[in-house]
């Protein structure tokens, strides 16, 4: 008896036409948690979501909502417990936004579907929550994609569910609306205790908004855990088969491939000044060496992914002589130097010496990598 879990699955196997796609799924969600499914296209995220909403019959295993199996739930019960927001484009005819949202009240209205006063209040509340009340009389086909998603979310909200399931809700949205939507979801989870299960492409968003993340790839669920556990370099690289780039968990972003070859350029950087240069060099496919960076410097993060070799010092320590010498030695084989620093501090004063050495050695000194 899982008294503390509101939504859980036991040995759930899903697939189409009796052919299992993903086996033995075990999810345990508390009330008011947000679970995000991530994984490559076609891995089966939609299949899992459709099985949860009973759009698809699960092949074996059980799904429980509040300890009741959904198999035994009637259509009406399911309607009052689970609401969906789908990716398909709706083609409605002559329906206002309010009409669309109002359909969410169907599990609660009488035989002819006439809305009561209470229903109308619910509709209004839902629309106000998503900031779409002013759109209420507009035709649903005439609003923008972002507005449409909000309306569909309002529809799901006024269905008064305990769980909202969303399939790639941010696919057509630009950043403004994406943030807005995810904010609303977070609010719903926190303030109303609604459990959210969704799939997302945008890993950075998934990292920020989820309580739990599930990696969907292959026949079994590879990982399920908190964002901290999941968003690791190795894990994500394997999940998405990254051979042509890398994942940086700190930024929560992806970088393109490290330039190959013998590095001819040495970049002196720190304090974030190196980022632009690193990216330009990467774009031009020019391998480079960089230093001396402190481990807590942001340039260090990017350098790890893009530079052929990084010279670094421990955080908060002034650059040691040892480090300085080894860097110098390495710098000798690079005929080109780019210095991104304009000022120096106590801890990285040695970079100034490095630069002066480079000039004395007659290296070609470029203002920026753009000149290459």
């Amino acid at each position, binding site marked *: 008896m899982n008294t503390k879990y509101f939504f859980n699955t036991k040995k759930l196997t899903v697939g189409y036409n009796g052919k299992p796609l993903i086996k033995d799924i075990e999810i345990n969600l508390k009330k008011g948690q947000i679970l995000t499914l991530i994984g490559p296209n076609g891995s089966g995220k939609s299949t899992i979501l459709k099985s949860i909403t009973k759009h698809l019959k699960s092949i074996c295993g059980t799904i429980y909502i509040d300890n009741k199996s959904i198999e035994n739930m009637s259509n009406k019960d399911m309607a009052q417990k689970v609401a969906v927001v789908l990716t398909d484009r709706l083609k409605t005819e002559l329906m206002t936004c309010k009409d669309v949202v109002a359909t969410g009240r169907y599990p609660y209205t009488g035989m002819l*579907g006439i809305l009561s006063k209470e229903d109308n209040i619910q509709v209004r509340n839902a629309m106000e929550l998503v900031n779409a009340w002013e759109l209420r009389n507009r035709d649903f086909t005439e609003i923008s994609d972002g507005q449409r998603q909000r309306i569909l979310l309002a529809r799901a909200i006024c269905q008064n569910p305990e769980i909202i399931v969303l399939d790639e809700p941010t696919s057509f949205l630009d950043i403004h609306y994406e943030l807005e939507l995810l904010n609303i979801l977070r609010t719903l989870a926190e303030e109303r205790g609604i459990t959210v299960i969704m799939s997302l492409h945008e890993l950075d968003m998934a990292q920020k908004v989820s309580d739990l993340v599930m990696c969907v790839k292959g026949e079994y669920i590879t990982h399920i855990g908190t964002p901290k556990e999941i968003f690791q370099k190795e894990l994500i690289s394997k999940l998405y088969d990254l051979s042509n780039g890398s994942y940086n968990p700190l930024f929560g972003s992806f970088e393109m491939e490290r330039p190959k070859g013998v590095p001819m350029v040495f970049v002196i950087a720190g304090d974030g000044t190196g980022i632009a240069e690193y990216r330009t060099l990467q774009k031009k496919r020019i391998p480079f060496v960089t230093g001396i960076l402190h481990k807590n410097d942001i340039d260090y993060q990017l350098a790890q992914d893009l530079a052929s070799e990084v010279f670094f010092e421990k955080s908060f320590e002034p650059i040691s002589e040892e480090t300085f010498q080894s860097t110098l030695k390495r710098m000798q084989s690079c005929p080109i130097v780019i210095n991104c620093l304009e000022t120096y501090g106590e801890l990285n004063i040695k970079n100034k010496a490095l630069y002066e050495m480079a000039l004395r050695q007659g290296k070609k000194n470029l203002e920026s990598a753009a000149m290459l």
Partner: protein
Amino acid sequence: MKENNDKNYIRYIITLTVLIILFAVLILLNIKLGSVDVSVKDIIDILFHRRGNETNYNILWKVRLPRIMASIILGGALALSGFLLQTFFNNPIAGPYVLGISSGSKMMVALVMITILSRYHSVSSASLIAAAFAGAILSMGFVLIISRRVQSVSMLIVCGVMIGYICSAITDIMITFADDANIVNLHNWSLGSFSGTSWRDVGVMASVVLPTSLIVFLMSKPIGAYQLGEGYAKNMGVNIKLFRIMLVLLSSFLCACVTAFAGPISFVGIAVPHLVKSFLRTSKPLIATPLCFLGGSVFCLGCDLIARTLFAPVELSVSTVSSIFGVPIVIYIMLRKRVQ
């Protein structure tokens, strides 16, 4: 918010009023106009006091009134059937015959005519009606059986079209082995007409169409849910499989009834729902279904009036007239939609 609701209600009331007025006017015109001139005074005597010249009495009670009833009942049935199918398939050119029903009817009528007629030299009109109805239900049955195996709803239209073609092919084979006279008559059957309706026919029509239409009205809620698509409808608690069956059954019954008694009548099912919805500016089934029915009745009353009086004693097929009016309406509405 309240003003907009009011605006909507006003629109609904106006549309309803206009339709009722047209309805009443067309009924009166249909009673008054015809090959034989009957004065208004005589009409009142005949209708309300049940007395008058025997010929005029018969003309009114046995020729004109049953026809009017048929236009009302069958016109409404067609419009309703069209509305259902347009909602279900989310396709503006879907109509009552998109599921291949008229081909099925024609095939059964051909079968009966060719086999029974060639042996017994005559066949009762009741059996032709039953044959047309059976043919319609048969094609509907095939569509249903196929629909169980099919995931997407638009496949049903393909099924309907295919079944239509198969039935036509079978009909053509039968015609090849029949003699010339039969062929001519089957061509005539393809053009719908309300001529010759009797009160017995009206009784049967009413007993099929009226309960079916009532059921459709009572299904306004799931139909409304369906307007967002099957995915959302299912989520809102609609039993999709059952709903599909009900929808095909209901629309087919309505259409089968029309085809059996009057033959195929085109464009009413496509044009009237569009017209009504664009006046109402809504497609909410609760409002749209009764008004579509009324609209269909009005449309058919008008078309039948023109069909029988324009070139009397030659009678045009009501299907021809409804096409002549229906096509420009549909084109106009399509264009307006695109501009928007």
